[in-house]
């Protein structure tokens, strides 16, 4: 007998069940093990052309990560947080969205941004250091890459909620959109992650949260990050559906994310998807991953590389041969060449842009400061010209 068992202890009254409905948590719970399709009977019924398409895109994605990393070594990118090993998550996140949908990426999600159609140079502008964002968020329906962790998640909720509001009041302008927010395992510890999920649940907003659990928040392992049964289980506390998927299984990723997006689109509420994956590279080019993880661990995950898993499956299923592999590799080299070409002499940023967009119209103070900088730059240019002329005269 417990003290709250009021059937046997009539003197004790249990809490009244008047503070809103209680929901059955069972349908919200994720599977105990991550959803897998590769190596299961479900792979046989998976659309063959889609499988080949996924493979080609993953090869391109891997090449993008390699090329961007190379650009950091050449000093053409200030920093690049690679998603090597997470390509199945990145690629499918872009693939499952329609044109009308919105993507809310974090700083490690450049590949998803490119996969949604942004030119690599523009997607990497933040990392080049030329501007804080290089693409028009409205053209591609992609929010700027968010560096403060999980802070973009409530934006996804607000935008999805706003679309529902507009659809209700102005049916002619209705857009049946879904917002997809990308978060990492570390980001799930942030308050904004919690608040976003709570708001999404309460508002019933058409949002999907994709947590790419790559095992580490820079150096801190998941065990030091959360005591939850899984990150997907966190959904239950907000009354939204949690789904756990193998993030290195491209077919499972596509399947689970597609279902989650359509769940949200159909008005059945938000979904939290946890993709279990691994960051094969360091946090960024400035990080030394050997300080916090073993070579054996990395090797074990290399054996589960999403690209080799998919390639092995496709070859075994007779859906891919050497010629197909070579064709994909060739397309990847074309992409790498395009990226290199885009990074050849991109225009320098305009110092005047420092002041132009702080406000819709610059304040008088900003106009003064812009004029001051412009005058200084003019004087510097004049001085440089004079110095060059002097040097020339001396040489004569």
């Amino acid at each position: 007998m417990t003290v709250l068992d009021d059937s046997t202890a009539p003197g004790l009254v249990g809490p009244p069940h008047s503070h809103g409905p209680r929901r059955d948590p069972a349908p919200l719970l994720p599977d105990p093990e991550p959803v897998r399709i590769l190596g299961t009977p479900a792979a046989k019924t998976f659309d063959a052309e889609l499988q080949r398409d996924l493979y080609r895109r993953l090869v391109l994605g891997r090449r993008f990560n390699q090329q961007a990393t190379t650009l950091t070594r050449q000093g053409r990118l200030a920093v690049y947080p690679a998603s090597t090993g997470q390509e199945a998550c990145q690629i499918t996140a872009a693939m499952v969205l329609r044109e009308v949908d919105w993507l809310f990426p974090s700083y490690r999600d450049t590949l998803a941004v490119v996969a949604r159609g942004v030119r690599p140079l523009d997607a990497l502008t933040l990392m080049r250091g030329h501007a804080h964002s290089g693409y028009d968020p409205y053209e591609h329906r992609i929010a700027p890459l968010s560096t403060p962790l999980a802070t973009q998640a409530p934006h996804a909720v607000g935008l999805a909620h706003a679309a529902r509001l507009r659809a209700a009041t102005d049916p002619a302008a209705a857009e049946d959109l879904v917002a997809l927010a990308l978060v990492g395992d570390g980001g799930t510890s942030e308050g904004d992650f919690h608040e976003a999920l709570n708001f999404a649940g309460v508002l019933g907003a058409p949002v999907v949260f994709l947590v790419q659990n790559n095992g580490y928040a820079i150096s801190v392992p998941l065990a030091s990050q959360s005591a939850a049964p899984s990150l997907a289980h966190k959904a239950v506390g907000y009354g939204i559906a949690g789904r756990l998927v193998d993030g290195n299984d491209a077919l499972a990723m596509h399947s689970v994310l597609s279902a989650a997006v359509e769940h949200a689109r159909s008005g059945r509420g938000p979904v939290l998807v946890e993709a279990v994956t691994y960051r094969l590279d360091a946090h960024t080019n400035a990080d030394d991953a050997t300080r916090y993880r073993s070579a054996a661990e990395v090797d074990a995950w290399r054996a589960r590389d999403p690209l080799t898993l998919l390639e092995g499956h496709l070859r075994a299923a007779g859906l891919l041969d050497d010629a197909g592999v070579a064709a994909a590799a060739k397309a990847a080299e074309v992409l790498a060449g395009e990226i290199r070409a885009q990074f050849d002499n991109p225009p320098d940023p305009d110092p005047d842009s420092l002041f132009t967009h702080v406000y819709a119209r610059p304040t008088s103070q900003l106009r003064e400061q812009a004029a001051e900088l412009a005058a200084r730059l003019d004087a510097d240019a004049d001085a440089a010209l004079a110095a060059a002329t002097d040097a020339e005269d001396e040489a004569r």
Partner: protein
Amino acid sequence: MSTTMVAALNAALRDSLREDASVHVLGEDVGTLGGVFRVTDGLAAEFGAQRCLDTPLAEAGILGTAVGMAMYGLRPVVEMQFDAFAYPAFEQVVSHVAKMRNRTGGRMGLPITIRVPYGGGVGGVEHHSDSSEAYYAHTPGLHVVTPATVADSYGLLRSAIASDDPVVFLEPKRLYWSAADFSPAEVSTAQVPPIGRAMVRRPGTSATLLTYGPSLPVCLEAAQAARAEGWDLAVVDLRSLVPFDDETVCAAVRATGRAVVVHEAAGFAGVGAEIAARVTERCFHHLAAPVLRVTGYDIPYPPPMLEKHHLPSVDRILDAVARLQWEQ
């Protein structure tokens, strides 16, 4: 007709909701209850729960949601219940609200109004009386506006909601129940004050008091009392801390050659320090004395039984005026 500041703010929200379908109010207790100060009273009943939304109790979530709504073209008006309760939203304010236009090269502006009841003098217990304006004013990308009169609370809130830039709208809760002869219905669009212009509330020839928000009535009272001392004090109501109206402020200081800045917030690294510096840089040769400040002490906001010592008073203002080097 006699109108309180709360009623004028309520009218501004109501008129904005009525005229622009993209305006949405959201916050804690703003719907059914009408807000803890009743500023949103009746809005949910008139415009529906979706236009005046009771949210979960989470300020970062409220503002973060508003950011997403603004991205989609709505004009959210967020209520932070009290000054010190707005701090959980600070990261959203600083990292997203203030920066979104800039970081997207002007492509994505966020027309969000963040209403914050602020300041003390109402007997509030801890965390209910902060003057948080310096945090916001120090963040480029925000406009920071604070009305001190009933008419301005209507007009400036209309302007804030209509602005394409984010506005932190600081409402002096000490003046919420102040009343004036004002009828929102008689305000034409042309009369709505623009953001960024200070106003000379009282002309004067001896010295200039520079103030805003809850300290304006104190300064006007001090100016009245100063007449007995033979001082004719000008009083400038800044109304907008960002953008700052250097033109009006400097003209008013040059006209008298003496200035005292008055605000409730702690003085160290406060808005008054910026004003004193700007005035000194721009009006040095017109000044007969250093620019002085009368501010709250550099202490956490005191418990209500002691707040009278902390708040700038008529006596403290007159003492400062007396120190403006009159014997020369």
